[in-house]
């Protein structure tokens, strides 16, 4: 108790920055536009490495976003999640890998297919 009092008296001259205080930068504000629809996931695999998506990277996914041509989409195809570039071809769609060793996946009405969310940011450890 006593110490607190002394500390108060010794607080000294007020900080010249006091009137100019700003809120520290918060990465959430930049990376998460819509907290209710944002989910995080971990990348596993190599099919997108040519686009810089490496094994172990952290995905920031927005479920609310509408897919657009060429977007990086978390897709659900025939019982499995996958991450590919989405390309609409009218009555079918192509899920494009970014690794020469992989083939594009063609999906149409015969597949169980849904876009789960769109990747907004990718975080990687250097």
């Amino acid at each position: 108790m006593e110490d607190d009092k002394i500390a108060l008296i010794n607080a000294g001259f007020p900080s010249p920055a006091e009137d100019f205080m700003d809120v520290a930068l918060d990465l959430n504000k930049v990376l998460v536009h819509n907290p209710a629809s944002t989910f995080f996931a971990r990348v596993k695999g190599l099919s997108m490495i040519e686009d810089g998506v490496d094994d172990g990277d952290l995905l920031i996914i927005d479920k609310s976003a509408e897919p657009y041509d060429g977007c990086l989409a978390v897709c659900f195809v025939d019982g499995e999640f996958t991450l590919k570039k989405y390309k609409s071809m009218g009555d079918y769609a192509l899920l494009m890998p970014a690794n020469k060793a992989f083939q594009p996946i063609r999906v149409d009405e015969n597949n169980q297919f849904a876009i789960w969310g769109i990747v907004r940011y990718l975080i990687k450890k250097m």
Partner: protein
Amino acid sequence: MVGLCDCNNFFASCERVFRPDLNGKPVVVLSNNDGCIIARSNEAKALGIKMGTPLFQAREVIEKHDVAVFSSNYQLYGDMSNRVISILKETVPAIEVYSIDEAFLNLDGLPLEGLQQKGRDLSARIRKDTGIPVSIGIAPTKTLAKIASKLCKQYPKLQGCCLMYRPQDIEKVLRKFPVGDVWGIGRKYRKKLALMGITTAWDFCSLPRSEVSRLMSITGVKTWLELHGEPCIEFAEVPQDRQTICVSRSFAHDMTDLGELDAAVATFTAKVAEKLRAQRMKAYVLHVFILTNRHREEKPQDYSIRTTGFEVATNSTIEMTDAASTALRAIYKKGFGYKRAGVMVTDLVDSNKVQGVFFDTVDHEKQDRLMKVIDSINSVNGRSTVRIASNGEMDQFSTRAHVSKRYTTRWDELMEVVV
């Protein structure tokens, strides 16, 4: 107008968000300890699986129809619930969170025309953003809004929102609606009313008010008025202060060891203290109770409770754990197998209005500061990062054989996307 937003088969729907392969397939979620079925997808309901069925009784149908079974994952459900609530708060002037999967919406002042479409848009947005399907009922009273949201579930054509306000529409609905399913009627009154030949909500509405007040309590009259379109149940934006807080669990196995039991009671106490602090309350009285397994009739049975009072109301984990441990030692008997234990606090007061005593032996300010530090560390680094040495983890006292990942609250349990 009042709206009710109800998440469809909430726990099962939460599991499905991360397991789209289970869409269209039967899913059930179990209670703590995997005891009973507490949530079912529509497909599981169609198989005749009833709410509250013990898991072992449903084994056959589960295996036969390949039903997906999940242990309850409250970390996940709590987070998904917060997401839904945040969208509601953003869209609607005021909301009242009624339970983990239901919230009332105050729609006063919004024009009637376009309300149905607004409801549909809101329902679609929640579905798109969170993956959770919801049913929104809109009506002149809370009780009618509940009925409207149930209709919404029955009729997919309504596209997630049912607006019901014209007297002739309400009558049409109430004529088909079982009186026992009306909010506030309950099992006891359903039986009583059935004996009088009253089976639908409309039958009940058609009773004279005097007859209702003769038959039932004031709640019954309120329900009757609400069904007539007269709002009687207030809109409580801020949840009312709770007068007791209780945390108790059944154990996976019967506990005979005092040390083991002590760890469980300490964990429950920490949880209670944390809840007290979150509500800015302190307690004067703490109860500890333990009970043996009723289903093992051949074993000696015991149910004991011990009540301790604090001279100065507290919400300190340390002080409460001490008291709880002493209480436990006073009631524990060697040779008994305890199946359940719990900690409850009563006589709660606002933590700012606590009266001190002259010869206080506990430094309450210091305790308050310490608790603040513990709470803030735990809120940043995850629950139970800092805890009293005698505490266990809440989860360790239960069996959860089918638990899914805590996808949204733990960094080490994120979903994995195979690319």
